[in-house]
């Protein structure tokens, strides 16, 4: 009961925190897609650079999230921009890897057929390989979004917004209400995003099957 009352009193605040949280995630993921998708294609097209790109994104993943954000903070200052860059770097690996795998997984026979009907290699890429790799990309996107929601919770430590603000102030004041009202929306956000993107992923797989 107390909890519902607390939520009712602070509803607008919580809503704006959740809004910032979602915006941060969307901005970071968009940035990661803009960078990661071409990187994945390059890795798949040019075998020689593939190990470099893939291991580089892997190493990024190995850095603890708070440490990555702290290092970024040294160069980009406090605020939402740093958080967006951090989310982008952290969700790069699943996107690059899955784009790479998706394009690699297209069967040689299908490629041959594309070449056979007179497609240029650019056309094979845009009309055959990329559409067929969409389900893989969706898998990567789903993983990336879950990671992004988690990383975005660290906002308060580098001066960004998001639901982490509520969680962090709850931890610092040992206020159970605050902890719950930050944790539950954040967890729900991650679970719902995972669920919805999972459904979309299944749909794209079915369409191609």
């Amino acid at each position: 009961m107390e909890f519902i009352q607390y939520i009712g009193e602070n509803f607008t605040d919580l809503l704006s925190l959740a809004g910032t949280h979602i915006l941060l995630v969307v901005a970071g993921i968009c940035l990661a897609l803009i960078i990661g998708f071409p990187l994945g294609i390059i890795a798949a097209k040019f075998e020689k650079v593939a190990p470099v790109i893939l291991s580089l994104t892997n190493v990024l993943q190995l850095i603890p999230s708070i440490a990555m954000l702290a290092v970024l903070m040294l160069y980009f200052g406090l605020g939402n921009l740093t958080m967006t860059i951090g989310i982008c770097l952290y969700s790069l690996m699943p996107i690059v890897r899955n784009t790479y795998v998706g394009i690699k997984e297209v069967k040689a026979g299908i490629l041959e057929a594309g070449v056979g009907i007179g497609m240029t290699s650019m056309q094979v890429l845009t009309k055959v390989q990329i559409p067929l790799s969409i389900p893989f990309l969706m898998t990567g996107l789903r993983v990336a979004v879950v990671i992004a929601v988690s990383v975005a919770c660290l906002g308060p430590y580098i001066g960004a917004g998001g639901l982490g603000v509520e969680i962090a102030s709850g931890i610092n004041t040992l206020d159970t209400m605050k902890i719950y009202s930050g944790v539950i929306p954040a967890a729900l956000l991650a679970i719902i995003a995972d669920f919805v993107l999972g459904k979309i992923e299944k749909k794209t797989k079915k369409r191609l099957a």
Partner: protein
Amino acid sequence: MNVITDYIEYWQDRYDSILAYVLQHITISFVAIVLAVVIIIPLAIYMTKMKNEKVKNAIFSISNILQTIPTIAMLALMIPFLGIGFKPAVAALFLYAVLPLLRNTYSGIKSIDQSIVESAKGMGFSAFQRILIIEMPLAFPYIMSGIRTTSVYIISWAELAAVVGAGGLGDLILAGIGFNDKKMIFTGTILSILIALFLDVVLGRVEKNILKKHKGGSTI
């Protein structure tokens, strides 16, 4: 040049406290990993014998959801139940280790050729003997790779344990953010990556050694 001498000086000054942070970090991660291995692997083996599909699916979806919850949210969630300090950190890290360990052990044992298990049954092995002598060794590479990835991730997540007052290298980073101190931030980051890489190499060695011994012993 100045930067390097500065940094060396920093290490000389802070040698003790950095070592204490490293030890705390390793203790938290180690306790969480050992707990997870001791509890989750038997659970996974039990699940492979379970007939009830519904319970199995429920356990898998719960562990899936646990994995989705943001790290800091999980740590914060432990505070009302376990207070601050060592306990909530270990509990949260343990919950994160559930899914990778469960999935690897389960699929490792499921991947064993059923005819091998059948022939063991025919030779009069009891259920317990089958698990210990046939299934565990055959699924060992899977189980070990589960433990390896889990350990590496737990070392990285343990960095956040500092937020709930458990200490560890995260303290160094949080303090570094507070003072805007590059040396603290980089020390905390690099040490945690080094610990993770070191653990990965050590566990890889252990895996190879055990596999070698096993192969040597099974030529009878």
